[in-house]
């Protein structure tokens, strides 16, 4: 635990990727394999299920620190992170320990969940006994693991690279081995770590029985002027053009009679989409499809909001399955008859995939149609229908491209040619402090539009979206100053302000919603621009917003 806490501190202390890489490699080389197994799990983004109710943790910490609730809350607000607040407030340790990370996770942290169910009354004493043995640096890590807020500015890619360096194995191979490693109920042991850094085996190259997907190949944004397309891309004939679907990117793996459905977040989602699992049963062994999970009815994709209703559910009743049916919009075939096709050109993979889908004739498996255009201008015209169709734009895939790993461009490129976001001019009416790096800045805002056109007396501002990204640090500092000067009321961490600030707010999608006061929900809202040139009176209205709704 000490070594892992020291690693956390070292990673946290530097902004240099080189220094982070060096620290990771040093740790992995020195750590016991059982500890390294868990370290990789957490660093690569793994999170166990909630171990202790946050509320209980707050109460116990407050009590141990001898503070009234309000003072604990004040402290939390200043710090902006619960785990850090608690580790700063607890009295110093009274005992010592020599247990490593694996010991702490397996003997102390994970059993808390079961204890909370079988004997909740024992939880407080158990927790106190645990933290009394940890030094303050270790406590930060301990509570962060407990609250699920362990993040330290290391990407999964960096962890992959460190493992690859330590193992002397190609990073792509390590990336494959890491797939599924950070599953929520993962229990990585020394042997699992050993497998991550083992020399490549012949069995690994012939993964006939493995449920592992391939690392996803990711697209890059393409935002250039239409008249540059020919120069940069050549003729459209060199490209496969498809719609860019707004769903969940997924790989469907069928090997040795079993089906695995993986989301891009490397989460195994097979059970969430039983109809896709059933469809997978019908595929021959040794098949891996790449595509998008989307809600589909009457030959049309439905808004992402519908898909969200399914993601959020733990149990899927027959009604939900009937009302919100999903399909896999397949666009790539990564494995066929047990053969890894990723080095094969995109166009050839596509032909094989189309044949497969045609033969299977399954209602839950649809190919993402290829779009044809005589010229880029022609495609640009077709793209104008994107919003109406509920898609985000187009995907451009080189016909000759192999299927790469992650955001690499060395074996081919996928471009996402997205439509411009929808936008309105909205007024900032509430502000809240941020977290982490922005803990003391008012950086999270609620925006409103008018409920009537100018000139109508007593028209009101109606909140409709929250956004916290899109401003530079400098702009955010200035906005923060205005918020402090124009505060009307404070409710805990939130301030209402006198409406003075107008922002151009961009978003990807818009839908009616009964859960929002405005009757409208927007997707991915963010600040495009601070409209210092506009007065509050000139901001948009609910009517303007409603006009953007798909018909």
């Amino acid at each position, binding site marked *: 635990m000490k070594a892992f806490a020291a690693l956390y501190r070292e990673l946290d202390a530097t902004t240099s990727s080189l220094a982070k890489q060096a620290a990771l490699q040093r740790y992995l080389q020195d750590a016991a394999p059982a500890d390294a197994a868990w370290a990789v799990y957490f660093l690569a983004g793994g999170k166990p299920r909630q171990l202790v109710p946050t509320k209980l943790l707050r109460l116990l910490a407050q009590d141990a620190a001898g*503070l009234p609730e309000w003072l604990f809350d004040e402290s939390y607000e200043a710090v902006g992170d619960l785990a850090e607040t608690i580790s700063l407030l607890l009295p110093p340790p009274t005992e010592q320990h020599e247990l490593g990370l694996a010991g702490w996770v397996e003997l102390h942290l994970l059993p808390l969940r079961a204890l909370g169910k079988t004997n909740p009354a024992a939880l407080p004493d158990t927790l106190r006994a645990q933290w009394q043995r940890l030094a303050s640096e270790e406590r930060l890590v301990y509570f962060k693991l407990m609250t699920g807020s362990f993040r330290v500015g290391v990407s999964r890619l960096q962890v992959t690279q460190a493992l690859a360096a330590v193992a002397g194995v190609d990073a792509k191979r390590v990336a494959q081995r890491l797939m599924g490693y950070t599953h929520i109920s993962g229990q990585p042991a020394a042997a699992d770590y050993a497998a991550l850094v083992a020399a490549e085996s012949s069995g690994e190259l012939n993964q006939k029985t493995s449920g592992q997907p391939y690392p996803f190949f990711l697209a890059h944004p393409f935002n250039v002027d239409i008249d540059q397309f020919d120069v940069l891309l050549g003729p459209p004939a060199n490209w496969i053009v498809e719609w860019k679907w707004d769903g969940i990117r997924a790989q469907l793996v069928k090997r040795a009679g079993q089906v695995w459905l993986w989301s891009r977040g490397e989460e195994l989602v097979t059970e969430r989409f039983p109809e896709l699992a059933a469809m997978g049963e019908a595929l021959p062994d040794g098949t891996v499809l790449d595509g998008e999970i989307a809600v589909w009815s009457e030959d049309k994709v439905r808004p992402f909001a519908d898909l969200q209703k399914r993601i959020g559910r733990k149990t899927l009743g027959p009604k939900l399955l009937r009302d919100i049916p999903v399909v896999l919009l397949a666009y790539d075939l990564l494995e066929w008859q047990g053969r890894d096709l990723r080095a094969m050109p995109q166009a050839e993979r596509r032909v094989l995939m189309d044949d497969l889908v045609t033969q299977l004739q399954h209602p839950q498996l649809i190919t993402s149609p290829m779009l044809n255009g005589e010229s880029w201008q022609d495609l640009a015209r077709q793209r104008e229908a994107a919003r109406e169709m509920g898609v985000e734009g187009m995907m451009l895939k080189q016909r000759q491209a192999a299927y790469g790993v992650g955001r690499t461009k060395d074996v081919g490129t996928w471009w996402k040619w997205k439509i411009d976001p929808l936008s309105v001019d909205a007024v900032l009416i509430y502000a809240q402090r941020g977290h982490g790096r922005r803990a*003391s800045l008012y950086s999270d805002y609620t925006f409103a539009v008018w409920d009537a056109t100018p000139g109508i007396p007593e028209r009101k501002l109606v909140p409709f979206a929250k956004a916290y990204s899109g401003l530079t640090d400098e702009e955010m500092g*200035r906005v923060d100053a205005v918020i402090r000067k124009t505060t009307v009321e404070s409710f805990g961490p939130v301030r209402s302000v006198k409406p003075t600030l107008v922002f151009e707010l961009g978003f990807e999608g818009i839908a009616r919603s009964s859960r929002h006061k405005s009757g409208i929900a927007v997707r991915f809202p963010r600040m495009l621009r601070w409209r210092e040139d506009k007065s509050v009176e000139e901001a948009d209205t609910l009517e303007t917003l409603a006009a953007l709704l798909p018909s």
Partner: protein
Amino acid sequence: MDLIVARPEGLYCAAGDFYIDPWRPVAHAVITHAHSDHARTGHGHYLAHTDSEGTLRTRLGEITLQTLVYGETLERNGVKISLHPAGHVLGSAQVRVEHRGEVWVASGDYKTEADGTCAPFEPVPCDTFITESTFGLPIYRWPAQQVLLAEINAWWQRNADEGRASVLFCYAFGKAQRILHGVDAGIGPLIVHGAVEPLNAVYRAAGVALPPTLRVTDSDVTPAMLKRALVLAPPSAQGTPWMRRFGNYSDAFASGWMQVRGTRRRRGVDRGFVMSDHADWPGLQNAITGTGADRVMVTHGSVAVLVRWLRESGLQAEAFKTEYGDEDVADQPAPDVAAQTKASDPADDVDEAGA
């Protein structure tokens, strides 16, 4: 009427007709210490500790200044005034004011741990204690000075071993000298920014032991020396062309605000050392209890929090509105949001975390 009240000009003692650390020009000013937010220009007459003379004259130029040593009493209109160690920086003092048997003590800025470069804080018994509250939240607990210095030494040593300069941003008056006094000068050369050296001279003149320091422009400073050096510079030097000469350096910031991870990260330095010349939360509590005062007036910092906490602990506590800041913040290079809004929002402690 209270012996000391908050007026628009500053804290005012009507019986003695003088102000303590006023922020607008007045006839008679008692100055707790020479930081710019406490010692301002334009007063008719200044009273301060003997060790503040050097810094006050350097900073304020021609002033009428009378000095006292700690414990020495001056009487004015029947009011007894004396200065007592505050442990904040060289010459920093708490002001004890006695009138008709009633005793008030104004702390100015203080810290309770001895740092070796100035007379350590002494609790002064009083009826009413005016305390600062810069770090008035229980999350602020300082590491012991030796632990802190060991961390700085270890960071410096590692950088020196790897052949890169260690640039430590710290306030030029007080903290820089505290670091110079405490670090292991055997690790490498000590180089100081132009804003730091004049204050070193004041400390040396007052008999504080500081190791030899160099300016980067000194002719005997070689590029090889820079790679092993500890460089002390004010926070305002961060990101300026002055930094370029140090090449691939590691940087750090020494401030109490570094206790919070988010602040440390926003500062954009490699390391944050939790080092303050203000009292931490336990320090504030001990100081307040140590005075035996049953009434406490709280100034600059976490005013609302400390007032409420003290009231719940059974003391009579009130807020005094002042225009003092925190030197770590006052020294910011860019237009600083926290500093601009602080005066209008004294209760909002974490604003200063913008440092």
